[in-house]
């Protein structure tokens, strides 16, 4: 005991008269001043598109940014859209598609072209887990990098508004990336729900080092990697350490990261598709377990913000209620599912958004799905056929698409780059 007490007492030795009142306060002031100075005199130009986790959102934006193609249609939505389009296109192309690189919708383009004439080049910006708040940010990020589409087709489902496993818009993987690309000032109150989240946002906006922490981290990792490559090079002849090895060793490190060839969509026969059906009811029971009214309200707000943004940018927004199995819809209370459908229709009417409800339990049955919500190649094809059919019937959507097709055609001819025209299948 005596030694401990002595050590404890030594923690606060009698100090000589101080020249300054508090070293900590001085340090705090200097730290604040440094941040203030850096805010106005940025020493390093950081690339906002760099991100430590190369997830779905990063790959999509990377593809979009590096592509010289003009896209007149963009698809938004969650994995329900990703799955339907990718599976359908894999069968359409009769080859496997690497989903880190492939963000097209070739079958949809073909159907639009044959129905409305002109040229169509769709960019699939749908991302697994995408909620309306993410879709809104994704669209803004797309427009920010000079890729304004003419038409947005946005596939929604109850999960996008009711997911109990996501308590706030900032919990999703796409959000973490898109927040770097889009100014959130006007929607910050809806994005950051808790006082702590709001404080975090405030600190990121106003403290240079905190706001740019990720950029500094990336730069320091790069610097360390470079130094270590010189000092301790990878020994020759050893077994290379791959991304697959890393995900096995450290499953929680950089969650959500994917690499080329990690997620493939391959052509399937109907027999294979039926055999591959898996029941994900338990997952959706958890997702629908306790729908949070605030999450619902927040996501509705972002759907409406997207409509507002589209109006401002003169983009035609088409919202599609995605097909799910009746088994999935039954997990929700029937009244909840019905209310959701009614609410979507009412909001779209109110905001003058073209809306199609393709969740038809007679048209889409279990053989059209991978699981209770994700469509397979056959469901995907059926979905796109029905979608184009619906688009034809709706005068406003049809004329927007016809105009978009013509515009792109005109663009190709004006550019005199017939090689750039999408091939007709």
């Amino acid at each position, binding site marked *: 005991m005596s030694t401990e*007490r002595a050590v404890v007492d030594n923690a606060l030795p009698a100090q000589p008269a101080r020249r300054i009142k508090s070293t900590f306060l001085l340090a705090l002031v200097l730290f604040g001043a440094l941040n203030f100075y850096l805010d106005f005199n940025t020493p390093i130009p950081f690339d906002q598109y760099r991100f430590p986790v190369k997830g779905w959102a990063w790959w999509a934006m990377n593809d979009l940014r590096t592509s010289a193609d003009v896209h007149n249609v963009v698809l938004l939505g969650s994995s329900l859209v990703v799955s339907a389009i990718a599976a359908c296109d894999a069968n359409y192309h009769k080859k496997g598609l690497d989903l880190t690189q492939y963000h097209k919708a070739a079958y949809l383009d073909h159907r639009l072209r044959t129905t409305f004439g002109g040229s169509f080049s769709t960019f699939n910006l749908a991302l697994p887990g995408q909620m309306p708040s993410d879709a809104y940010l994704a669209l803004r990020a797309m427009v920010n990098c000079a890729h304004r589409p003419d038409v947005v087709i946005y596939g929604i489902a109850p999960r996008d508004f009711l997911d109990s496993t996501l308590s706030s818009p900032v919990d999703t993987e796409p959000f973490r990336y898109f927040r770097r690309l889009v100014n959130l000032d006007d929607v910050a109150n809806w994005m950051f729900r808790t006082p702590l989240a709001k404080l975090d946002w405030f600190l990121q906006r106003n403290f240079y080092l905190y706001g740019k922490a990720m950029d500094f981290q990336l730069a320091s990792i790069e610097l360390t990697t470079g130094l270590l490559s010189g000092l301790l090079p990878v020994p020759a002849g050893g077994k290379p350490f791959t991304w697959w090895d890393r995900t096995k060793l450290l499953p929680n490190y950089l969650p959500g990261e994917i690499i080329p060839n990690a997620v493939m969509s391959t052509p399937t026969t109907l027999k294979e598709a039926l055999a591959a059906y898996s029941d994900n009811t338990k997952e959706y029971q958890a997702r629908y377990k306790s729908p949070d009214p605030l999450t619902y309200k927040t996501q509705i707000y972002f759907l409406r913000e997207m409509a507002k943004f589209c109006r401002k940018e003169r983009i035609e927004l088409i919202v599609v209620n995605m097909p799910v199995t009746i088994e999935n819809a039954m997990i929700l209370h029937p009244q909840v599912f019905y209310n959701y459908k009614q609410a979507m229709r009412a909001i779209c009417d109110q905001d003058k958004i073209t809306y199609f409800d393709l969740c038809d339990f007679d048209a889409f049955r279990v053989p059209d799905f991978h699981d209770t919500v994700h469509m397979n190649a056959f469901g995907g094809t059926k979905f796109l056929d029905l979608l184009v059919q619906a688009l034809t019937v709706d005068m406003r959507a049809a004329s927007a698409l016809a105009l978009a097709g013509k515009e792109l055609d005109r663009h190709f001819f004006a550019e005199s780059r017939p090689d750039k025209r999408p091939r007709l299948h």
Partner: protein
Amino acid sequence: MLFNSLQYLVFLPTVFVLFWITPHRFRVPLLLVASYVFYMSWRPIYGLLIFGLTLGNFLLVPLIAKATEQKDKKWWLGVVVAANLITLGIFKYATFSLITVKDTLNLFGVQFREPHLHIILPLGISFFVFEFIHYAVEVYRGKPLVKKFFDFALFASFFPTQIAGPIKRYQDFIPQLDIPAKFKWQYLDEGMQLILMGLFKKVLIADNLALVSQAGFSHPGNFSSLDLWLITYAFAFQIFFDFAGYTDIARGSALLFGYKVPINFNLPYIASNVADFWHRWHISLSTWLRDYLFIPLGGSRCSQWKMYRNLFITMTLGGLWHGAAMHFLVWGAYQGILLIAHREYSRLLEKSGLAKSLLQSKIYHAVSVVVTFHFVCIGWVFFRAENMQDACAIISQLVQAPAALLHFSMQQLSVLQIRDPIVFPALLIILPILMIAQPVVNWLNDKRFYLSPPWALQVGVMVALMCLLTIFSPDSSPRFIYFQF
């Protein structure tokens, strides 16, 4: 609420300001409320547990003091200690006990399916239960009672030390509450220096090394014996910086209110033998085990055999205190065996009459430090491994290292193949720096450098730490290792 969270960054300054603007008589209730807010921010219902235990101990312990007969005193002490241990046992050891019973019965061919208890371990229970037991035993030994309930409640729930210690002594802590302290800038400066240093240890060192130990201990088969030594060293420093970082933040936070809590670490990896290690590692626990387990069992004032028995029981139970799992029990037993072996070795040296000059030479001391560190590291394998099977597999790999060194090539080091996370190859630079840093810090301690560093240096270090912590604080830092105990 984690110390390395934004929540705490708001909570601590708020309580700090409120504390110093509040008249002295309201400070204890204020800290008490703050401590319960801190504790209940995780799982509000467990606030009732800590309150219930506090009330129970506050009401029962005076019965020990009031009892006139020694027999009655003993009886009441037994009741209090048993009540605390049963509570700890229910929350911490019930599942483990049922599994052990099941495994034992299965050995004899008896089928027994243990019920699933769904018990969530309340944070810090092992720490505050030990503080209650300490209080009861000290009162039994004739020390004064705590008269004020609020003081006693704050002793148990004081938020800086609530979750992972240091385990306080009430004789040291309670008197500080009565002193009407005036604010001193020194409290703020020294407290914040400790907090920043603690966060640095946790966020920048321990959390990065955690990636290495997580990979190595969950997939030992993927690494060579030399890699596994590096991974074991990495864990040795991870657990040290994690816990020492936590303790620094706890001590710094307490100091902001003018309160001192005991230190927990004193450069443990420069210990020259395992007994010395336990004088430097988790000091508040080791002294608790000495005072309330080893000495009541008979201590060292008995026959040698009994003393070794006491030592072994104390360390084994100390191991089990860390967690309800066989590998913690084995780790504790291993420490007990090391301490016994050390005593025997010391006796042998004394008997052999080896030249005193040799034993006191710097070379002998340096070799002792290295050997002790390696024995401690082998212990960490039991501590960190996910189960006994993994621990044995890792140790059987570790012992093959001398043979691997005989035909050493860089290709043997899988850590050099891994470039993401970069901390894997960086181990070859980080670990020697951390190892050398220990004697260097010790030398600076001897020179009493830390007692009066130049103010410009203090400010510079603090600004640098603020910048580093702002940049490198991850979105989701892992919890402190000792939170689980």
